[in-house]
């Protein structure tokens, strides 16, 4: 869907040095118009720096940042078609809510009444109708967040940059704002670029995600691909939970790889299931998500493969139960998650059971 839309932002081999420190190491990526794009990575990976090169707050050492096909090298931050929502919100404390939201309209040639209308519309968009006359400093965290959004969106930028906008909010507020941001993005149709260290947030909100480590993009993909087919062991470790079992490659031919994984026996995988072992200590491993392993309750039959297993640990979450189970022939326990369905018991520690998996859910890191 998004591939049909025009390119909004393009990074061409972007490098950034702070003295000797190499903060961005050859970033190449394109972000399309109307996309909700996330830069995800641990702190210090360069994601905020990359965002700030789009805004124009950081220069780059080499390469090019293009917005709408135009090289931004000589365009200062105050003339770029981007607006930013800051991590601290950066609400001007000496101004009212309306003055904050209308700040960017100062040089707008429209009449006072029209501008006031635009401010009220922007406030309405973020659910703050009637808050205009309030003092900005008297707002709650969530309200400041909304004011910051309205203040950026009132200028109708081509790109909205969001620097960890939800990190200061509590969990409930954060989840609510995630949904609101997605809705808002669909409504205004502007390209959103979000910086976050929260993989769950990135998965929930984004059309595409660039996972960054140490100044480089490790993988750029849609959330599902990122989750199901992480490009490397490092990405797999960073996003969600993944089990790893040692594996031995038996043969490779015709786009198929035959491996023998501990406890799983011989499995044949497709080429597209083979990923880089970068970030792994030892040799080849087979990885799989907790929910791709299923406990076979009475009367069920497995899909591709089955094995005996023993429950070692049970963590009950209400809607879900997490089991640490030891599959027959494995050295270590693996994590498995089951949705709790009415009438299905939660297994006790020590229960002997059978588990099943499917070859398609596995990923080989080598």
């Amino acid at each position: 869907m998004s591939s049909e839309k025009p390119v909004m932002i393009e990074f061409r081999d972007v490098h950034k040095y702070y003295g000797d420190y190499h903060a961005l190491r050859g970033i190449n990526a394109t972000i399309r118009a109307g996309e909700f794009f996330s830069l995800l990575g641990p702190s210090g990976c360069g994601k905020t720096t990359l965002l700030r090169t789009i805004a124009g707050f950081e220069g780059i050492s080499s390469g090019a940042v293009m917005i709408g096909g135009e090289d931004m090298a000589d365009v200062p931050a105050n003339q770029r078609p981007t607006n930013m929502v800051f991590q601290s919100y950066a609400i001007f404390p000496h101004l009212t809510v309306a003055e904050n939201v209308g700040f960017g309209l100062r040089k707008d040639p429209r009449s006072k009444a029209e501008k006031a209308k635009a401010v009220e519309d922007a406030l309405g968009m973020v659910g703050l109708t009637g808050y205009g006359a309030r003092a900005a400093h008297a707002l709650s965290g969530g309200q400041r967040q909304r004011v910051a959004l309205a203040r950026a969106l009132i200028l109708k930028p081509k790109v909205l940059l969001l620097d960890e906008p939800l990190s200061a909010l509590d969990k409930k507020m954060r989840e609510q704002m995630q949904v609101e941001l997605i809705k808002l993005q669909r409504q205004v149709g502007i390209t959103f670029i979000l910086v976050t260290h929260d993989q769950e947030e990135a998965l929930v909100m984004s059309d595409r995600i660039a996972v960054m480590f140490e100044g480089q993009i490790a993988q750029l993909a849609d959330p599902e691909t990122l989750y199901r087919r992480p490009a490397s062991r490092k990405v797999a470790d960073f996003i969600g939970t993944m089990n790893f079992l040692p594996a031995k490659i038996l043969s490779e031919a015709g786009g198929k790889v035959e491996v023998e994984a501990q406890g799983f026996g011989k499995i044949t995988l497709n080429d597209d299931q083979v990923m880089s072992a970068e970030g792994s200590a030892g040799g080849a491993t087979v990885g799989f998500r907790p929910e791709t392993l299923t406990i076979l309750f009475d009367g069920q039959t497995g899909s591709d493969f089955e094995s005996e297993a023993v429950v070692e640990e049970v963590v009950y979450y209400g809607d879900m139960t997490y089991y640490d189970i030891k599959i027959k022939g494995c050295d270590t326990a693996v994590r498995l998650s089951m949705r709790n369905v009415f009438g299905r018991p939660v297994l006790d520690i020590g229960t002997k059971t059978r588990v099943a998996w499917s070859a398609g859910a596995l990923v080989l890191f080598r």
Partner: protein
Amino acid sequence: MNGGWFRIYAFGFLLFLYAPILLLPIFAFNDGAIVAFPLAGFTTKWFDQLWVEPALHQALKNSLIIAVSASILSTCLGVFAARASTRYNFPLKGGIIGMIMLPLVLPEIILAIALLVVLLGIGIPLSIYTVILGHVLVCTPFSIAVLTAAFQSLDKSLEEAAYDLGETPASTFRLIILPLVTPGIISSLLMTFTISLDEFLMAFFLAGTEPTLPVYIFSQFRFPKSVPVVLALGTVLVVASIILLTIAEYFRRRGIAKMGGKDTGGFL
């Protein structure tokens, strides 16, 4: 009793600090040329004399001109220095800031004499302008100290946000930075004004034939008959400074409340 000795200590401290000042008005209204108990009766004649003393008026005028000029100049310099030291990095920054702050701890008499020698050496006549120069030198470090605190509490992303919203660095400074550091600027103006107004050493060395108020008061103390007049003058100054500080504190608190900041006490 809990903390009994500390109470006595605190009381003694305050007494020592303020009792002498309380004596000022007592003797200023005392109908006697000698400053001693018992009191001789109530009079306002010493205050009347303040009105008919041209030399005093001239000294007061000099002092006000000097204090206003010095406080504005040193606060301007303080704004530049505080801005530079909190927002930019440049080689030898620590050393340069340290050198600027040095007059804070340097014996003032050394500064005064050195300045006098240099001024006379290059042939600049002593006047209220040379006193202003000396006072700017003395006041600027105080100004920087107050303003650095104000600039430091400024979130950098506020500036970036204004810039991001289309403002230039100059208009960002005017619209965002300046209003937010205004309480600091007022504090600085007030403090440097007060420092300059009662500064003696620099004024004594650099004033030439145009004495400031402290220099005038000092010179009057040689004549016993003018001591009550000086006390009356002192009383007026105490009342004036209390009024001034009250007004300043009112505006400072109002500014903080308006921006929702936390009251960190400030200098006043």
